[in-house]
């Protein structure tokens, strides 16, 4: 109970005093996660749409694989990315290990299947409504996908938020590929892990509360933006 209270106090103190380190860590968390999310959406949303409108032989297998990849253990993803980026690895020359870029790469791998899968489900349902109309109107495959992306945007927002939530709270992979280097790759989750290990529960909890608040703010913010964009019932 005392730790909890101390954590709340610490979180409050850090926010009120605009603690420089906290701001740096938070901004880095956001930058890494939002970059990874943007790229995941760029890949995952059209991929979901494409899977919804295309009928091909291995479609079921692809979808099953995609769903299985959602459960990919982040630590393993981190390990594999580490091996690729380490000096002796195939991409070692790029010198990306222990940089935010490496963390972004790991997060992209972790959340893209989740984003694509939720997007696919939403657009598959919409496609069953739209199928006849879009075929009748002679829409090209690209136009079909774009139409689904636009008209399923609310559900796609949910997909993006799920991706955001998974990425911002992820610790295993980015700890391995980022290294939790102070001032370079330390983010909220790795800082929490570190402070917990050190026994500074108040600071760890303070960071945790900020992390949760961040996730809530992003979620509320995007829902609000979607709702005000157009007042509709769909």
């Amino acid at each position: 109970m005392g730790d909890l209270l101390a954590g709340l106090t610490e979180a409050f103190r850090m926010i009120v005093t605009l603690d420089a380190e906290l701001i740096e860590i938070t901004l880095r968390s956001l930058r890494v996660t939002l970059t990874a999310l943007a790229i995941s959406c760029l890949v995952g949303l059209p991929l979901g749409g494409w899977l919804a409108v295309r009928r091909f032989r291995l479609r079921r297998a692809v979808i099953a694989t995609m769903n299985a990849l959602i459960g990919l253990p982040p630590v393993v993803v981190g390990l594999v990315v580490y091996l690729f980026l380490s000096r002796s690895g195939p991409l070692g020359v790029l010198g990306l290990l222990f940089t935010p870029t490496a963390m972004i790469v790991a997060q992209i791998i972790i959340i893209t299947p989740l984003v694509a899968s939720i997007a696919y489900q939403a657009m598959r349902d919409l496609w069953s409504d739209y199928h006849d109309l879009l075929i009748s109107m002679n829409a090209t495959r690209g136009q079909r996908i774009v139409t689904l992306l636009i008209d399923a945007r609310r559900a796609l927002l949910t997909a993006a938020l799920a991706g955001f939530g998974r990425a911002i709270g992820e610790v295993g992979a980015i700890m391995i590929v980022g290294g939790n280097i102070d001032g370079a790759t330390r983010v909220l989750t790795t800082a929490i892990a570190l402070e917990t290990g050190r026994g500074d529960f108040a600071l760890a909890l303070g960071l945790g509360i900020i992390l949760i608040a961040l996730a809530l703010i992003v979620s509320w913010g995007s829902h609000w933006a979607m709702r005000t964009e157009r007042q509709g019932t769909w």
Partner: protein
Amino acid sequence: MVAALPLTLTGATLRRQGKTLIGPVDLTLGRIGVTVVIGPNGSGKTSLLRMMHGLQRTADGHVGWSVADAIARERQAYVFQRPIALRRSVLANLMFPLRLRGASRAQAEARARAIADRFDLTAMLAQPAPSLSGGEMQRLALARALITEPEILFADEPCAALDGRATRQIEALLAGTAAAGTRLVMATHDMGQARRLASDVIFLLHGRIHETGPAKTFFAAPATPEAEAFLNGDIVE
């Protein structure tokens, strides 16, 4: 512009899971007129229309237009038995087919507003299309189909579940469309409507054309006992 019509069906057959749904059908649709497709529930009206429109691939036979299929596709429009509303505003629904064809936003919007005026939709342009009433939705579906000025319009029971007033309104729009030179092929269960609109009739039974001919002769003196029974409102097996 070379006309896509006449449309010629030769031995056109539609099968699903080994069951023959339609055909074989031999039929020619000329450039003008209103063909009304009638028949009991499940006789294949929807399937026949969908097959002509190319939504369903024939298992046998041929559905041939007078121009290449790709061009013919651009000249047709279809109003579904269950209208499909895009989850957008009424205005965006109307603009949609034009936008697909590469029209600019301004151009598409101007034409959408013009057709909305004709179809009595102006008051609800900003409304989400899924929230329209049944009659309004039918008007939207019809307007959206006609905005590309198709050579031929397929309409599958465009007045199903509408009250008398809304039915008359749609009928007037359909008659106007046909008078303006659009070829009309429509399915209906409403024999009054069939009499009012048809120039010729296709009577379907069990997926085949049981009787066809000019509307006048068909309604005055059907040649087959089944058609006569159907017109009398009897149950046709």
